[in-house]
């Protein structure tokens, strides 16, 4: 039966646009502007989902963007929320978490087993005997969870935007709108956010059958529309409050990070269900849900209903129901007094029977348990919270609207650090200590009267203006008068239970009582034991009731119970929104394209991409690395080392600075020479090593390993600040390219381009100079890290490719070959050089790598020196030694990080190991027992598969060069 009403003024649907869809295999239609839930309800469909635990039929509860019992799937998306997601043409929807459809769900039997499954039952069962737990676990896991994940869902990440403003107003109800307008009129840039499609908040549905609210709404909407400095975001929720007034605002299109100078939280309140037997049947819904169905979507909630209330709002709901043509068979008011004569009179005039001091004792289910067929009304003693079964009245109805009170939508206020206190006047937590720059207005602030809500918005705007240094006039807001909008204890006991507090998690009153009996009687423990508020709606309709129940159990005032911590997010937020489009930044040298075309296989080193080796069809990586290394040994190789960190240290105190920063001496270093530079941290741990070239009296040029470059430069800057030396530091890592030509032919090749004398006498190992190559000023350094004869040419990085091509051409006749980092690692190993960060780890001290000669302990100071004086007194625990395997070794190849063992004890590990074509055997570096460090001594390495390999300590280099 269609529940669609004739056109309602202000409805959100477009009746000229029909939308067809299916639900559980049945065809339906709705209108553009409908949500899935409103379209189904309009079509007369009431069973929209099954509950999480007991698989009870569920329909509409709050219809306020957190009805998680209505969760559907289209086979593509996993958990689509029916009350939030707009209806789309051709949608084929099914309820999630059913076995055999929402009407015939085979798991509904669990409901009748519920006495077996009290709160926390799973802590008390299935674990004995232990061996059977995996069996039970499978069943439990399958029963839990909601939707099924679609593994073929495409990767969709959404854009992110940033928005800066003076004031962010969250919530566009009467107080939010008034606040935004008041602030904007004083010139503030205002962002106004509301989760609904249209501005207005309760002004879009709470009419009490009258036109007056809509008139106010239309005026406010028009004013906002003509105010240029109010930036409106609708269909947008504020997901959380983060430090310094940053609020991510989520829409279907993505997230906007709004950074405001001040924030007004005008998020209103969530209506809370009174709790009675079967209060979860389809057809039982909150009063505001009924109003939203009617006034936003033109859907009749039910034909003949009962309204149960404990405030004035229930009367307004009844008037809206009557206005929509629904019969109101009874209005049941849980209060003995406090009724407003005007509302009572109006309803009585319209023929509604009012039952004061009464409660709905139970909703009577239809025989198929899929809906409501009546309500049982009992007198209710407010003081004791007891229903009196003596004088019951049974009323036939197909729906019940519930309005017993509210809870503040204060999650963002809590996240901002707001102190909240409980007001007995309105039976609600209200802010009593707001952090700087955060303000609250409207019902979340405890202001209920419509006129005062608007005033409160203006008052908050005035406070914002004051906070921002302006002088606005005072705005006063009247204190709440009259009966409380919330009932302090709207609960009705029933021997059969099924009086639900948390609809996400199927938690009933007795679950709280029992949890408390077991000792879980503070709100956080109760939450964890019962799981109240842990479902997808995060307690929006359940936390306040849980607090009230616990207060009653412990006979304490509500404020003594406190609240649980409110965590982001306000609504569940998709991964693809939060992750957004991520950026993977990496740096490339100017020669990168050449490497690519030459078949380079790249690896990431720090932020850089570097060729590991150059691929060739039909050849293995191992083979290619060996070939590249052999080229260096036999003729020449060329490597792009432009990624190395390069830092200029200049000024009168440059040498002094380096003496303090590094372990070695630099004051007596001659211009035109290089020195090894070893860096420790203050604990004496090896951090990095590099080369310092002295290019002038007051100019040193440092090279630093690629991945440490940024961090070493940073530390240099800090120590320079501390020491206040007359030194300039320039990070020229990106400014300079670096090409290393290595091998016996290196001199001849480089010599073709360089005009200076490269002979050993004129430019020996360790020499460095500034010269000109290809008409460009360069720095030339003779190095020995990968080969005994090698030259580094440092040129402005834009010239890198030109130099590379020129060197390749110069070397063509010699068989020059590019090599990558893999061959480089092998080549330095053959020369016996350790690699900081590869052969050392986060605890290695210089004694363990045999670097004593690099430590100028006689200097007055260097970083780590004082710690070394302590470490030096201790026995070295392990020592890095070069080792070889027998030439004829044919067993399993040891790997980096295989252990060095001695019987049952771990003595160290292999840090580098490779087959050396130059030494014609397997060589490596390993940490060993310091007692076994002499050449010729043998130690055991255990390979991956567990076999023991005998390795022999040797001297380096591993081969006879030149």
């Amino acid at each position, binding site marked *: 039966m269609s529940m669609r009403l004739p056109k309602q003024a202000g409805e959100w649907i477009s009746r000229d646009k029909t939308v067809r869809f299916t639900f559980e295999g049945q065809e339906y239609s709705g209108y553009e502007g409908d949500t899935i839930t409103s379209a189904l309800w309009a079509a007369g469909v009431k069973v929209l989902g099954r509950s999480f635990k007991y698989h009870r039929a569920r329909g509409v509860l709050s219809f306020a963007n957190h009805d998680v019992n209505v969760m559907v799937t289209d086979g593509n998306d*996993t*958990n689509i929320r029916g009350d939030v997601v707009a209806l789309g043409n051709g949608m084929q929807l099914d309820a999630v978490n059913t076995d055999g459809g929402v009407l015939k769900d085979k798991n509904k039997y669990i409901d009748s087993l519920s*006495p*077996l*499954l009290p709160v926390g*039952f*799973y*802590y008390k*069962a*299935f*674990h004995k005997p*232990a061996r059977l737990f995996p069996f039970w676990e499978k069943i*439990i*896991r399958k029963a*839990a*969870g909601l939707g*099924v*994940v*679609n*593994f*073929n*869902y*495409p*990767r*969709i*990440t959404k854009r992110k935007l940033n928005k800066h403003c003076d004031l962010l107003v969250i919530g566009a109800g009467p107080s939010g709108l008034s606040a935004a307008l008041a602030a904007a009129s004083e010139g503030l840039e205002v962002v106004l956010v509301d989760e609904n499609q249209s501005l207005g908040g309760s002004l879009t549905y709470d009419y009490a059958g009258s036109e007056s609210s809509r008139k106010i709404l239309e005026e406010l909407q028009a004013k906002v529309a003509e105010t240029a400095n109010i930036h409106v975001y609708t269909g947008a929720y504020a997901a*959380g409050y983060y430090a310094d007034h*940053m609020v*991510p605002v989520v829409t279907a299109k993505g997230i906007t990070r709004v950074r405001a100078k001040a924030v007004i939280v005008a998020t209103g309140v969530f209506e809370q269900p009174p709790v009675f037997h079967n209060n979860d049947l389809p057809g039982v819904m909150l009063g505001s849900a009924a109003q939203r169905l009617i006034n936003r979507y033109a859907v009749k909630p039910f034909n003949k209903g009962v309204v149960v209330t404990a405030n004035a709002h229930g009367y307004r709901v009844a008037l809206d129901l009557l206005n929509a043509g629904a019969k109101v068979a009874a209005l049941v008011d849980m209060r003995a007094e406090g009724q407003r004569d005007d509302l009572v009179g109006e309803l009585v005039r319209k023929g509604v029977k009012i039952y004061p001091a009464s409660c709905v004792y139970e909703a009577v289910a239809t025989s198929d348990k899929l809906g409501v067929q009546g309500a049982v009304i009992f007198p209710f003693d407010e003081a004791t919270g007891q229903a009196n079964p003596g004088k019951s009245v049974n009323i036939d109805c197909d729906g019940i609207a519930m309005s017993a009170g509210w809870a503040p939508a204060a999650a963002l206020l809590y996240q901002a650090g707001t102190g909240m206190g409980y007001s007995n006047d309105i039976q609600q937590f209200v802010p009593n200590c707001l952090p700087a720059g955060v303000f609250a207005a409207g019902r979340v602030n405890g202001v209920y009267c419509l006129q005062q809500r608007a005033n409160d918005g203006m008052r908050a705007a005035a406070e914002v203006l004051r906070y921002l240094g302006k002088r606005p006039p005072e705005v006063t807001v009247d204190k709440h008068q009259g009966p409380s909008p919330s009932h302090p204890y709207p609960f009705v006991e029933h021997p059969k239970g099924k009086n639900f507090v948390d609809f996400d998690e199927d938690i009933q009153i*007795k679950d709280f*009582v029992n949890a408390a*009996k*077991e*000792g879980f009687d*503070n709100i956080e*423990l109760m939450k*964890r034991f019962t799981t109240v508020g842990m479902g*997808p709606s995060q307690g929006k309709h359940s936390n306040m009731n849980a607090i009230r129940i616990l207060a009653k159990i412990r006979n304490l005032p509500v404020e003594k119970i406190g609240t649980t*911590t409110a*965590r*982001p997010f306000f609504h*569940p*937020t*998709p*991964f*693809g929104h*939060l*992750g957004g489009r*991520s950026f993977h930044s990496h740096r490339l040298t100017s020669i990168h394209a050449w490497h690519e075309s030459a078949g380079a296989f790249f690896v990431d080193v720090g932020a850089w991409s570097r060729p590991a080796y150059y691929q060739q069809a039909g050849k293995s990586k191992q083979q290619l690395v060996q070939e590249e290394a052999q080229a260096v040994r036999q003729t020449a190789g060329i490597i792009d080392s432009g990624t190395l960190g390069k830092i200029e240290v200049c000024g009168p105190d440059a040498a002094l600075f380096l003496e303090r920063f590094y372990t070695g001496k630099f004051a007596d270093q001659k211009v035109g020479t290089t020195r090894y530079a070893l860096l420790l941290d203050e604990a004496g741990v090896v951090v990095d090593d590099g080369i310092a070239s002295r290019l002038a009296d007051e100019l040193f040029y440092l090279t630093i390993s690629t991945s440490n470059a940024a961090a070493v430069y940073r530390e240099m800057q800090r120590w320079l600040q501390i020491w206040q030396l007359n030194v300039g530091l320039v990070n020229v890592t990106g400014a300079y390219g670096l090409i290393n030509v290595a091998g016996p032919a290196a001199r001849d090749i480089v010599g073709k381009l360089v005009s200076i004398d490269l002979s050993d006498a004129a430019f020996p190992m360790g020499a460095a100079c500034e010269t000109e190559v290809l008409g460009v000023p360069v720095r030339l350094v003779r190095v020995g890290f990968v080969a005994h004869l090698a030259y580094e040419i440092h040129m402005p990085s834009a010239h890198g490719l030109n130099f590379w091509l020129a060197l390749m051409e110069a070397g063509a006749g010699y068989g020059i070959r590019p090599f990558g980092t893999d061959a480089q690692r092998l080549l330095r190993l053959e020369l016996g050089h350790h690699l900081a960060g590869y052969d050392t*780890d*986060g*605890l290695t001290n210089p004694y363990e790598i045999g670097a004593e000669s690099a430590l100028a302990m006689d200097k007055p100071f260097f970083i780590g020196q004082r710690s070394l004086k302590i470490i030096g007194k201790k026995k070295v625990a392990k020592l890095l030694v070069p080792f070889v395997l027998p030439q004829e070794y044919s067993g399993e190849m040891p790997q*980096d*990080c*295989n*252990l060095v063992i001695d019987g049952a004890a*771990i003595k160290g*590990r292999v840090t580098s190991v490779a087959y050396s074509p130059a030494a014609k055997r397997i060589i490596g570096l390993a940490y060993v027992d310091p007692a076994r460090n002499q050449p010729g001594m043998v130690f055991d390495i*255990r390979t*991956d598969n567990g076999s023991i390999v005998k390795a022999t300590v040797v001297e380096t280099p591993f081969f006879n060069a030149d």
Partner: protein
Amino acid sequence: MAYQLLKFALGREYKEPRFFRDCQTPKKSYDAVIIGGGGHGLAAAYYLAKDHGITNVAVLERGYIGGGNTGRNTTIVRSNYLTPDGVSFYDASVKLFEGLSTELDINLFYSNRGHFTLAHSESAMRTMRWRAEVNKHVGVKSRVVGTDEISRACPQLDISCSGKAPIQGALYHEPGSIARHDAVAWGYARGADSMGVEIFQNTEVQGIDVKDGRVQGVHTSRGYIATGKVLSAVAGFTPRVCKMVNLQTPIVIHPLQACVSEPMKPWLDTILVSGSLHVYVSQSSRGELVMGSSLDPYEVHSTRSTFDFVEGLTSHIVDMFPFLSNVKIVRQWAGMADITPDFAPIMGNTPVRGFYLDAGWGTWGFKATPISGKTMAYTMANDRPHELIHSFRMSRFEEYELTGEKGAASVGH
């Protein structure tokens, strides 16, 4: 159907007893006072009573039991550490965990899932081998596996990570498990309480009396308690408690954040960790994905959430599992992690006689709950450190003998 459930259906009255008494007024003195009613403190109380017969013990909890890092972690239990001492210690913890549901008679949902530490680079693969070799040496089931084995265990994982950080292999740790964290605290609380230990919630320690280098007693919001032995098991509050006895530590407090998704039907059976992507993820028995990341980058003594965390984490999760793009995160939270310079705990006696420290748990406290309780109980009962915790002694920093866990720049989880 498990027969334990039947008792709930029989009889009108709900007869389940309290897990632990509602203690309000402490005695004048106790043989030992434990500060911190988290998993560690409660476990220490339990083993003090059970292993050593010391039952005249008070546990003082500032908030509610299990409300600190016990209830904020991502519940992973594993022992695939880097140093032999570390591996042995956590392996003993795993073994205790395996029998704990039975011992405490509470279903901890101890679920053996297997644990993959993904490696996205050659250098990460080297570290995996290092850990595997040490684990094997100590007898713990860990090994380096290739991408084929990862795909078999988790076919949904995009091995290329959306092309951004291709996975090269992993360290597979067979005993890796998850458990219901709160229940661990509740089970130990019940066990300790049943042997006479008194647990005081909402009880703040305001000072510790030390005379002649010895602990004399504890000032609390419920009055003064005389005792000769005090254990501090307070994780992120360690600096505050240590200050009461003028004890310097190297601990710094960094928030560690986590989040959960909405519930889904089970699909992720294993525990996945990626150091390079700063992600760890498993699916709880409720169907939620439980996810964590690395430590926050700077010191804060609070449990505030940041948006940066969740942006970074979700972006990497979507790289690993592109199909989760429209699945939703429900909640994020944080704990205060007490970090040491070498990524290993500080346990044992201290220069203040009678003051015992169980701290420096960083991101690895939950998995150590049973063994830390057991070894600290031993240490308190005998006034000398248990052999398993020797390398975690406080004095190692002055001695420049930091544990080797720092070596591999451990991943937080």
